């Protein structure tokens, strides 16, 4: 699972009002090279929750991103930043670990890179 997906996922348990961001417990992280596409990065940037994204990348051991979200204008020219953004967003994969609901502490295990978001009957 990439951080792109982590940034979109939220806990869906009944009664949870703010299930975002899911806490990451990473056991195994792998890197896979992907071709960079600047248009996609510019398109997705406004939709990213920056703080959750930076925190998640730090947990995975990547500390190159700035704490504060940069101005959208930076995306037009700063290729160095785009490269870092791209690396954290699309190239870091959580292979094994778990996602933890911030309110209830319920664990969603990640196996072979696939988070198991199935809810029990009493959580629907």
């Amino acid at each position: 699972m990439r951080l792109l997906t982590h940034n979109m996922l939220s806990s869906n348990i009944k009664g949870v009002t703010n299930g975002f961001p899911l806490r990451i417990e990473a056991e195994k992280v792998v890197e896979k090279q992907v071709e960079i596409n600047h248009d996609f990065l510019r398109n997705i940037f406004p939709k990213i929750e920056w703080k959750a994204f930076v925190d998640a990348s730090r947990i995975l051991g990547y500390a190159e991103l700035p704490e504060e979200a940069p101005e959208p204008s930076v995306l037009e020219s700063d290729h160095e930043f785009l490269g870092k953004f791209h690396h954290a967003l699309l190239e870091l994969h959580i292979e094994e670990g778990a996602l933890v609901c911030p309110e209830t502490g319920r664990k969603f295990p990640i196996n072979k890179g696939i988070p198991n978001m199935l809810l029990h009957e009493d959580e629907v």
Partner: protein
Amino acid sequence: MSSRPELQAPPEIFYDDTEARKYTSSSRIVEIQAKLSERAVELLALPDDGVPRLLLDIGCGSGLSGETLTENGHQWIGLDISQSMLDIALEREVEGDLILGDMGQGLGLRPGVIDGAISISAIQWLCNADKSSHEPRLRLKAFFGSLYKCLARGARAAFQVYPENLAQRELILSYAMRAGFAGGVVVDFPHSTKKRKEYIVLTCGPPSISTAVPKGKGEEGESCSDDESSGDEENQTVSISDRHRPRKKQKTNKKGKGREWILRKKEQMRRKGNTVPPDTKYTGRKRKARF
């Protein structure tokens, strides 16, 4: 036994290791899935600016439909309930991210982040109650409600479905409308039993010109009106002809079926979605005597 998989077992049980393997190793299914997803992407009507979007593939299975999304250059997140199917997707090294989840429990996604959603032959599963806790109406409501929330404004969703009957289609549509979607059903090749495919095309947001439902393939209004006019001509000839003549002879005269008849038949086949050679000056032309 019925050939509909929905009637045999719940999806996470029906698509076990063998069934998942079968599904992906059959070149026929692969080809059909690719065609269906290609059409679904077309129905999403994403702006043609070459910018990759973030799409959702609901019931992604082994990632056959996701591959089409990747080919079109998009990033995607796939959701499926069958672990076996997802394992195959991993084997095939699909580009998108996979999530093991149940669409009937609602999609746990942040609001307004997804640029479009497709689903190939999956939504009809929602209409089944496979566990005692399943209530199809509630599951449809949870699904469409959460989908409406996570789609960006103006984003579209294109779901290819095989509804079992009229009532099922109505049920699915009514819950989509209740969630706030505008849209309807697009039927490709409505005249053919085999190639007929239904897509539910939904748009997030209030009705406008952009939410108009696109036309299905093989149902152009033009060809229909042509048929009517040619029908009229026929009626005229029939009324002139001798009423005591046996019926069968009225249709075929000595010259054979004629160009008119051939063109009509070809149009009929075209509407069914069959491949038909184009109409040229050679169509229905008589052979020379020396042939």
